[in-house]
């Protein structure tokens, strides 16, 4: 590389870092307004994990609205925490935020709503009709899963959204009891009964333990305690104060109560405040979103590089990919820091991690063979896996507490990590196979030399996949032996992993035996995508065994679509070689030479 083109990689790095930097600088709370963002860093416990209010806000809004932000009446995009604060303080404004995503026309009609762009509706818009759909929801819930039609499914989705919303509001409400009235005790008993009912559904616990021996409690639980104990939790008053100030729109009062509460927390911190602030910042940065944007840019660069000016653009794409890989790594590290668990604890974690593994492999290939293939595949894999992760994140918090059987950091850090590396390598081999087939069939770019190189890359990656999937699978068995005294139980997930090992072994033995050459290798590697997808998602759909994490029906559809797409690619790869554009091009070249 010579001249100004040498600067391109530098440009890529500087531009991407600059763009990331611009995302870091968060707009703070404006002077004189409520310090809502600071409020977002306060601690609570939900689903067993200590997290900041900000996380609850984003995940709740994701459940209800499919977004981490909402649009206010003036058309401005607002952070989730503002919405949450309105909900939990039971402010009148909460009912007017258009956050409920209702896209089903039948459901819109049932709720008396007019179709609208973006499908977001406010609580107050359908409140009157809620009673009308209640019997339909109960009926849908009674049906077997197989019997439910689309409307039933949408009804139940809607019902879980409204339930989540009401639970948030109720968990932070102060029951109205007229102490002077004659039947005060009856009102109290009713309120208490209601409290016990909602408490069973898993309330947010926002009152922290501030002295030894205390437990996290829900706000409403602490309110009931305040009725009967002489010294209620000191956290109750400032929180209640903030909620009241929010209702009344009194910024000064809100901020002074917030400051009071922060002092209280600082004297006996119930959770590490650094981790909470870090989590809020992590939420704000959305590093995986940044990664996916940058992966697309790197992919485009890689594509342009094929058209011309290859070397310089490939270098540029490579260094851009190195930057993104660094960010991807940092984001995974951040998840480990926040949760205290190894990187993979659920399907979301696997998607993020498999993407990371593929990108790493792509970069290694690119340092060995500098002609852009590694970049291109890495960016595709990075983007697709983050897209999958995005869809898997739809149901809320992606950092979960592990149930007892799975709560072992040692095995999560070894078996789970290695087996997912194995998945990543097998997928990467499949991607290489796809690229090989497409290049050969649809372009003239696959020379003899290039075919050889592809053969070597495929072989290397499959060997790597073989090693990792074998060790990962056996480690899984050893986990079972160490925990239950049973190495292999023929559980569906174990079987899925075994199939990957056997498939990789099959490909390698077929090559050693001379049964396949590069094209056959590529075709088999593409089928490896199906085998891996089966183990990754397919076996979860069977609903058996300890390993199944639960599923949604759309997963099955997507899985079938994926399998179909891979089969199509295999068919393309199996077309006679004389039809391949690359082969025809080489033959013609040979002909011309001879002629």
């Amino acid at each position, binding site marked *: 590389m010579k001249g100004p083109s040498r600067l391109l990689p530098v440009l890529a790095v500087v531009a991407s870092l600059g763009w990331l930097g611009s995302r870091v600088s968060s707009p703070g709370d404006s002077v004189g307004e409520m310090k809502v963002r600071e409020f977002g860093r306060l601690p609570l*416990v*939900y*689903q*067993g*994990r200590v997290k900041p209010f900000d996380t609850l806000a984003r995940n709740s809004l994701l459940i209800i609205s499919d977004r981490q932000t909402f649009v206010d009446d003036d058309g401005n995009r607002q952070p989730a925490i503002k919405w949450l604060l309105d909900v939990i303080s039971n402010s009148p404004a909460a009912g007017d935020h258009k956050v409920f995503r209702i896209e089903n026309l039948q459901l819109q009609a049932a709720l008396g709503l007019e179709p609208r762009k973006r499908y977001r509706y406010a609580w107050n818009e359908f409140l009157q009709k809620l009673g009308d759909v209640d019997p339909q929801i109960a009926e849908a819930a009674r049906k077997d899963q197989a019997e439910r039609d689309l409307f039933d499914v949408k009804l139940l989705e809607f019902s879980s959204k409204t339930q989540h919303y009401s639970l948030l509001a109720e968990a932070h409400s102060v029951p109205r009891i007229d102490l002077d009235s004659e039947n005060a005790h009856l009102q109290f008993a009713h309120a208490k009964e209601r409290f016990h009912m909602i408490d069973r559904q*898993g309330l*947010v*616990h926002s009152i922290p333990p501030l002295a030894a021996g205390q*437990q*996290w409690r*829900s706000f409403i639980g602490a309110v009931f305690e305040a009725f009967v104990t002489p010294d209620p939790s000191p956290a109750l008053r400032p929180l209640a104060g903030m909620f009241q100030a929010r209702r009344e729109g009194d910024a000064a009062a809100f901020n002074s109560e917030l400051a009071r509460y922060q002092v209280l927390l600082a004297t006996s911190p119930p959770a590490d405040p650094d981790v909470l602030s870090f989590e809020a910042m992590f939420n704000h940065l959305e590093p995986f979103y940044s990664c996916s944007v940058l992966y697309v840019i790197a992919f485009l660069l890689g594509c342009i590089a094929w058209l011309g000016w290859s070397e310089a653009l490939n270098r540029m794409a490579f260094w851009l990919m190195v930057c993104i890989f660094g960010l991807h790594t940092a984001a995974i590290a951040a998840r480990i820091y926040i949760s205290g668990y190894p990187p993979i604890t659920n399907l979301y974690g696997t998607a993020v991690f498999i993407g990371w593994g593929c990108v790493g492999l792509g970069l290694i290939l690119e340092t*060995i063979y500098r002609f852009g293939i590694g970049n291109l595949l890495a960016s595709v894999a990075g983007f697709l896996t983050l897209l999958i992760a995005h869809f898997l994140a739809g149901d809320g918090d992606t950092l979960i*507490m592990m*149930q*007892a*059987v799975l*709560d*072992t950091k*040692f*095995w999560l850090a070894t078996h789970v990590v290695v087996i997912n590396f194995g998945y990543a390598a097998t997928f990467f081999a499949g991607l290489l196979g796809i690229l090989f087939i497409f290049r050969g069939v649809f372009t003239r770019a696959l020379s003899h030399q290039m075919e050889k190189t592809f053969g*070597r890359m495929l072989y*290397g990656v499959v*060997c*790597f996949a*073989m*090693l990792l999937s*074998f*060790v990962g699978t*056996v*480690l899984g*068995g*050893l986990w079972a*032996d*160490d*925990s*239950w*005294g*049973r*190495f*292999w139980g*023929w*559980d*569906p997930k174990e*079987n899925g992993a*075994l*199939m990957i090992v*056997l*498939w990789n072994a*099959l490909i390698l*033995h*077929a090559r*050693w*035996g001379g*049964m396949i050459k590069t094209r056959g290798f590529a075709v088999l590697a593409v089928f490896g995508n199906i*085998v891996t997808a089966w183990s990754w998602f397919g*076996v979860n759909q*069977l*609903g*058996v*065994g300890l390993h199944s994490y639960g599923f949604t029906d759309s997963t099955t559809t997507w899985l079938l679509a994926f399998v179909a797409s891979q089969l199509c690619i295999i068919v393309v790869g199996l077309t006679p070689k004389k039809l391949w554009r690359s082969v025809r091009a080489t033959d013609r070249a040979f002909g011309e030479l001879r002629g």
Partner: protein
Amino acid sequence: MPSVVKKTLGGLASLKLTVALFAMGIFIVLAGTVAQIDKGIWTVVHEYFRCYIARIDLKIFFPRAWDVPGYFYFPGGWLIGAALMINIVSAHAARFKPNARGPRLGLGLLFLAGGSLLTWLIIIGVFTKEIAATEGDAFWRVLVRLAQGGGAAVLLLIGCGLVFRKRAGIVLLHGGVILLLVHEVFTGMAATEGQMRIEAGEYVNFTYDSRSVEFAIIDREHPEFDDTVVVPGSILARVGSIKDKLLPFDIEVLEFMKNSSFANVAEAAHGWVNPATVGNGLVAMSVEQPEVSGVDPTQTVNVPAAYLKLTGRDGRDLGTYLAHLAIPSLPKQTISIGGKTYDLDLRFTRSYKPYSIQLLEFRHDKYIGTDTPKNFSARVRLIDKNRNVDRVVKIWMNNPLRYAGETFYQSSFEPGENLTILQVVRNDGWMLPYLSCMIVGTGLATHFGMNLIGFLRRRKAE
């Protein structure tokens, strides 16, 4: 070598056969996975994996609602495994000739012998502690086991390196694969599993297997021990008369139910004649139910029951009893013959142990504000007079107790009850996978590593 032998060996050692076997293996594993939608794991394991020929229903590959008819036969797990084993061994016999002579060969064989010996010692448990208790971190105890395997793997690798040179990794890793295959066969034939249900404070010295029952006649007269005679469920299932000099009476099995549910006799259909003439059968009846398939996700088990007509040695009719599993709402059934009183008890098959376990405390912790279990743990006292063992150990999730060749893990509990249910597993080949993991891993890493280094060198030279 005579050419016929060579040809046969060549065929058995063929890589085409290897690839075909892998393909069949993948297919049977897939079939054995989707079959688990309808059947329990244990049933599937026996019908697909631990058998020579599997009968595969077509319907398992399609949505169940379609109810596709038909079936076909396919090589079962054991047949494929055996063929793979023959394939590997023949391949090594045919293709992997020692590539050394004289002292080098001798030294190599010495290392191979040493490595094999170490492997054997590890398998028979020379380096395993008598009580591998649960105090240690999973990290350390697994590392120690893997290190043992690693030691053996390194010795064997040196041996292979001396004898087979460049092919050392391949030979070594296939040796490890053979170990894995052997382990699965051994487990299928020799491993046993049982359960121990211990209430707080209680001592228990037996395990039961909830997959089978026995009818026990217990004489509790002696203060030190109980005199028990048991009739295995397999004999009851034959239905007919049972005579034995150990039994204080003759038994005629009128009806045996593999799975049943209890009902009140008052709810019986009109015209039903109660076979029972004495005991609990006068108030309760057992109604036959379809068999539960193996172990399904809800962990339900079969509840067997039987109607037994008992006749005294003198030919006197002692009445017909409903023999059933113990439930709290019904009293224990007894019978008096010749001044002696016997307990009559249909129970899960027991095996008695030379040690006993007392439950001191059971804990079930949940994450705050959720029903997600955070931990189950049992603090127990282990007593074995023969070996002078009396100590307190904790058994909790992912941290089982290993004692006397058996593994005790926290398996289950009953909500609201202060008790623990431990799964007790015996598998004498349990160290094999640890060895195999290290041996195959080392072999693969060596082979691929050598390839990679060679490749990088060539590339640099280019």
